């Protein structure tokens, strides 16, 4: 299973494992309205 895609300016690439871990941490702490 590939990691999600990340975009920096015009470049879109697969997240590194570290970036994916940061993403999960960020999303878990964000309340849905």
């Amino acid at each position, binding site marked *: 299973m590939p990691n999600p*895609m990340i*975009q920096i300016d015009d470049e879109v690439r697969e997240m590194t494992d570290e970036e994916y871990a*940061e*993403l999960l941490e960020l999303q878990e*702490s964000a309340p849905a309205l």
Partner: protein
Amino acid sequence: MATTTNYSWTTPDNTAYVKDGASAIRTLGSSVDTTLFTALGGAYPGLRLVKKQTIGSAVSSVTVTSAFSATYEAYKVIIAGGACSNDNSSLILTFGSTTSGYIYSYGVFASGVAIGDGSTSASGFAAAGQANTNSLTFNMDFVNPFLSKHTLVSGLGGYNLTNNNSRIAYSGVVPNTTSYTAFTLTPGSGTLTGGTIYVYGYGAS
């Protein structure tokens, strides 16, 4: 001496000497500079587009680099179009590589209902915007992101289709002195596709 039609800038006569060319160009350049500064209201006046970023397809986050610089102290950021794979997802805003210490609060005004939420130690500005399968909503002002001062944000976060909430008044601060050049938007769930992020600078001079 010949002059231009509208602003009477001095230009050399046809019979003027070549040896006086440097001086003539300098005089004309100064006149253009002065007129532009006066007509525009400053060197970098008004609201100016400094970055335009198209969101890719099925991305889990979008980072906009080179968004902030010493030219402007305050910015307006708006997203038009776009969509999220999930309805009623939020857009989480982060600056640079800072992943802690975000302080924010917001109020949600629905029909006859007012609710609010906030945090004093978040990993990002949660619900700074809203993301639905129909559209993305983000409309915020950033103050001081490039300056070595607290970065302030405020704006209208959007709406929630399922709960019929709207008019989200939002404000927050990153209470550090980091100078930022980039920001990132991350959906609380799902992925983003399409839409355009516009970054405008508020003219400072």
